[in-house]
């Protein structure tokens, strides 16, 4: 089964995207469905007996204060997925901008940006995130959390994109586009960026997953926003009310599994994309492939400004 799933890049992408789409759908309409159709509320106390296991009425049981866990899980998807999307978007955006610009522009500005990216890369992200989150103290709701997460997590992605851009900018087709009379900006967006698409996609996926996990982590230690219902706050409550010790697995497991599921789906998509964008799998071999003659000296050089 797993081997078959693993076999084709397209299958991985399909399964992964399906799961992600489902999650997004839950995030968008889930809370409404829970409220309107199932008549449950993620905040209503004593909706059922405390710490009741899964039943027909409470699909995932109840919390110690009798709140419906299923309603919480579905509602929590929204904040988690939104923080993930917004945080992931910010992080990816910054990664793309910094990666592209620092990779494409040689010269002083490029070098300075590269240095900046490298510095952000070695400064540990989670401590920085905790530090900033502790200063902002949960103000601004989930949007602020998403912003902070985005701002502290882009460096790794930027590095990947910078490396890609660096290798792309020296590729012949980039030069060819310039000889074809295209302007710098057009070259960048029509020739370089499309090649980064798989990398951007994977950065985005992991940034989303990373943001969801980071938000959960913040909530978990109480540095996030405990008022909202998210997977992180669910875990916070489950943990602080001793869900595991009381055997209330239905309360403790779903949020963690939710995060893991999103992560796994994103991972699948990413693996699939990697495979599909591998030219060895796509290209027909009908011409003579370049037989590179090694350059005489393997030293990097740049031009002398005349």
């Amino acid at each position, binding site marked *: 089964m797993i081997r078959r799933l693993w076999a084709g890049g397209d299958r991985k992408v399909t399964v992964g995207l399906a799961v992600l789409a489902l999650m997004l759908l839950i995030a968008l309409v889930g809370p409404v469905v829970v409220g309107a159709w199932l008549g449950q509320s993620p905040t209503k106390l004593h909706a059922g007996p405390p710490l009741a296991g899964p039943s027909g009425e409470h699909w995932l049981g109840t919390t110690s204060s009798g709140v419906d866990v299923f309603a919480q899980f579905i509602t929590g998807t929204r904040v988690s997925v939104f923080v993930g999307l917004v945080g992931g978007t910010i992080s990816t955006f910054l990664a793309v901008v910094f990666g592209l610009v620092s990779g494409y522009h040689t010269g002083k500005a490029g070098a300075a940006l590269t240095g900046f990216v490298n510095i952000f890369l070695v400064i540990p992200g989670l401590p920085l995130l905790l530090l900033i989150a502790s200063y902002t103290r949960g103000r601004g709701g989930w949007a602020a959390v998403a912003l902070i997460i985005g701002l502290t997590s882009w460096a790794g992605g930027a590095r990947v994109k910078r490396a890609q851009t660096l290798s792309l900018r020296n590729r012949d087709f980039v030069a060819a586009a310039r000889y074809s009379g295209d302007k710098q900006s057009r070259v960048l967006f029509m020739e370089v960026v499309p090649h980064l698409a798989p990398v951007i996609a994977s950065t985005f996926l992991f940034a989303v997953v990373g943001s969801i996990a980071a938000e959960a982590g913040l909530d978990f230690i109480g540095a996030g926003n405990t008022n909202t219902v998210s997977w992180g706050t669910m875990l916070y409550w489950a943990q602080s009310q001793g869900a595991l010790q009381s055997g209330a697995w239905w309360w403790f497991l779903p949020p963690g599994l939710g995060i893991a599921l999103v992560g796994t789906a994103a991972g699948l998509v990413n693996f699939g994309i990697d495979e599909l964008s591998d030219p060895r799998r796509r290209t*027909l*071999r*009908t*011409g*003579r*492939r370049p*037989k*590179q*003659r*090694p350059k*005489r000296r*393997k030293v990097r050089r740049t031009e002398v400004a005349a």
Partner: protein
Amino acid sequence: MTLLEVRDLIVEYGTDPAVRAVDKVSFDVGRGEIFGVLGESGSGKTTLMTAITRLQRPPARIAGGTVTYRPSEGEPVELVGCTPRRLRELRWERVAVVFQSAMSSLNPVMRVGTQFADAIRAHRAVKRSEAWDRAAELLELVGIPRDRVRSYPHELSGGMRQRAAIALSLACQPDLVVMDEPTTAVDVVMQRQILDNLKELQATFGFSVLFVTHDLSLLVELADRIMVMYAGRAVEIASAEDIYRDPQHPYTQGLRDSFPSLHGPRRELRGIGGTPPDLRRLPTGCAFEPRCPQRVDDCRESLPLLIERDRTQAACLLLDRQEVAR
């Protein structure tokens, strides 16, 4: 005296659809002979080499045929059905290989000497220091200073690396050295030096060489006999002299006429025209038929087999006809 006997070898790539990259190829390599394999990109040369040495990787698989190695003493060994253990014993000891680019065939993070010693000690019970001494000797044989055994591959020039790779192939004095485009990565001057060196060594040690390239002029100079491949099949096997002076197959003729010569009188280059075939969609008849200037109607239907005529084998209906007619 045959050293290697290849019979009806079929190699397929188990992709979807399966690609038959080597199709019923048969030939013999004699003891002490330089046997050349010529063909354009994608004609199955590398596939043939890896199959003979059993180095093919999935999705490639040998779908039929035999490869028999006949040592000067002892029983012949059938390589295709051979156990991995027996195979490991034969490798390098009897059959060694040299790849296209030495940069990529030498481990970049290992000293050259270690890579020699590895090969020697896998087959001979010698001490490390002895193996290193032997490595230094081998390097000297190809004109590289002894002390270079301590170098890493990147510290050697392209030509030196290529020569080191050849020296490495001789580490256990094999009977057969298989070379897959060993000089494409160096420039002509270096190529010349390497080939001269190779010929010298071959004359000294008497091993056979199976030499793969797409460069006709080079092969004609170097090889004793040449096999020309087209779309996975052998289309002509003949002595180097015959291939150059009197090619039988229209494809070989076309190749010959595409090479500009440096010294002879300027002759007209004719070329072949058309494009090489797609192995996945081969015509039922002769694969060269669409590009062949001498094609006849039958070429589209019937697949020509190698026919022997005066020491020359060629696979073309035209020759078949002549044969029948005679």
